[in-house]
Structures are given as C-alpha cells and as structure tokens.
C-alpha cells in the first residue's frame, strides 16, 4: 500500500520564492477577512453613537490593536497588489518566469510602501506619535 505512487504535491518541487508569494496570497486573504470583521465592528461603533465610537477608538489605540491594524493594512495592501497580478495573469499576460518574478518583487515593494505610508498618515490622523 505504502509503495503506491503519490500525485505530485508541494514536497516534490524545488522551492522558489514565487511559491511563498502564492501562499502569502491566501494568508493575507484570511487576515484581510478578519480585518473586514474589524471594519464592521468599527462601523457598528460609529452607528451606535459618540460614546461607543470614543470607546472603540480608545481600544484601537492600544499597542496590540495598533500591531493588528498594521498587520491588516499590510495584508490588504499585499492582497490588493497580488490580486491585481492574478487578474493580469487571468488575461494570459505576464506568465513567463522572468515576468512573474519581476511582478512578484513589485508586489512586495508596493505593499510595503503602502503599509509604511498608511502607518505614517494613520499616526498623524489619530493624532498619536508614531
């Protein structure tokens, strides 16, 4: 039984960095889903009234919440950029190995830049020091 051939799975392929980009798309997608729940929670606080909103913003100001918000921001930015990459692939373009590696690097750079910009602007908007 154990000698039967297995269908090819992750273990049989040589590791390429584009593979980690691919699994990152799923991980950031799941993280963005949790971020969406946080967005709904924030909207509900806003709809409840000024006191509830003030309490929600206070909670969002704690170090753990800030860390989570930075994580959600990066996840959204990465999933946005890499999702665009997937949509371009769906049209049949950019599938050559060199192109896919270049676009992968561009996705990482763009996601990090957006996260840094958001953290900087977010800190200013929330009127707290970075």
């Amino acid at each position, binding site marked *: 039984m154990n000698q039967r051939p297995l269908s090819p799975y992750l273990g049989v392929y040589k590791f390429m960095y584009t593979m980690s980009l691919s699994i990152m798309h*799923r991980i950031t*997608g*799941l993280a*963005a*889903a949790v971020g*969406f*729940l946080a*967005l*709904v929670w924030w*909207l*509900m606080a*806003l*709809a409840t*009234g*000024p006191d509830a*909103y*003030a309490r929600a*913003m206070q909670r969002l100001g704690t170090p753990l919440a800030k860390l989570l918000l930075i994580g959600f921001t990066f996840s*959204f930015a990465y999933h*946005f950029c890499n*999702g*665009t990459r*997937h*949509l371009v692939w*769906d049209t049949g373009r950019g599938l050559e190995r060199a192109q896919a590696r270049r676009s992968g690097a561009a996705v990482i750079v763009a996601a990090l830049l957006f996260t840094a910009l*958001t953290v900087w*602007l*977010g800190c200013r*908007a*929330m*009127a707290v020091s970075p």
Partner: protein
Amino acid sequence: MSLRTPLGRVLGKGSAGDGVGHWWVQRVTAVALLPLTAWFAISLLGKQLQSYEAMRGWLAQPWVAVFAALLVVTIAWHSKLGVQVVVEDYVHGKGNKTALLLFSTFVHVVAAAAGLFAILRLSLS
C-alpha cells in the same frame, strides 16, 4: 464516445456540480473591489479618525453611503468565496469541513448585515 449525458453537457456544470460560477464571481468581485477599496482606504487616510462628528458626517453623505454599502457587501461576498476555497483545500473530514463552511457563511452574512445596517443608520437617522 462521451459518457456525459446530453443534459450534463448542456448545463456545463462539470463533476463538482457548480461549473465556473465560483471562479467567475471571485474575479468579478475582485475587479469591483479594486476601485472600491482604493477609494475607501484613500478617503480614510485624509479624515480625522478620532472625530465622531467628522466620520459620521462623511459616511452619512448619500454617495459615500451607497459606495460604502457596496464595499461591505462585495468584501463579504469575495471573502466568503475565498475562505471557502481555503477550507475546502486544507480541512479534511466531511463533518469538520461542512461545519467550518457553515460557520464561515454565517459569519460573513452577519458581518454584511451589520455593516449595511450601520451605514443605513448613519445616513438615514
């Protein structure tokens, strides 16, 4: 000779029973989310997030409310489809898989309903 029935060929739904519907809706919602999320993220960056009045005043504007509502529904839909794929790929066992898929669907529906309700309350009251 094909072993597929004429009806199966006409319906074009394949062995999984739902054809390319899932894949296609995932793409349609993805395309819709590009402008929606970009608009929402960029708008938020310029706002005074600490001010209840400012945030409420912004979200209560008719067009802002309409697009925020579309954003909430489209994210919930896209997210539901995405989480479904991850669960189907990595969670084994019919019981576990079905339970998690049900849970994910309910959470997404509740989130969409709550988000919509919040936006309607902000803009209509």
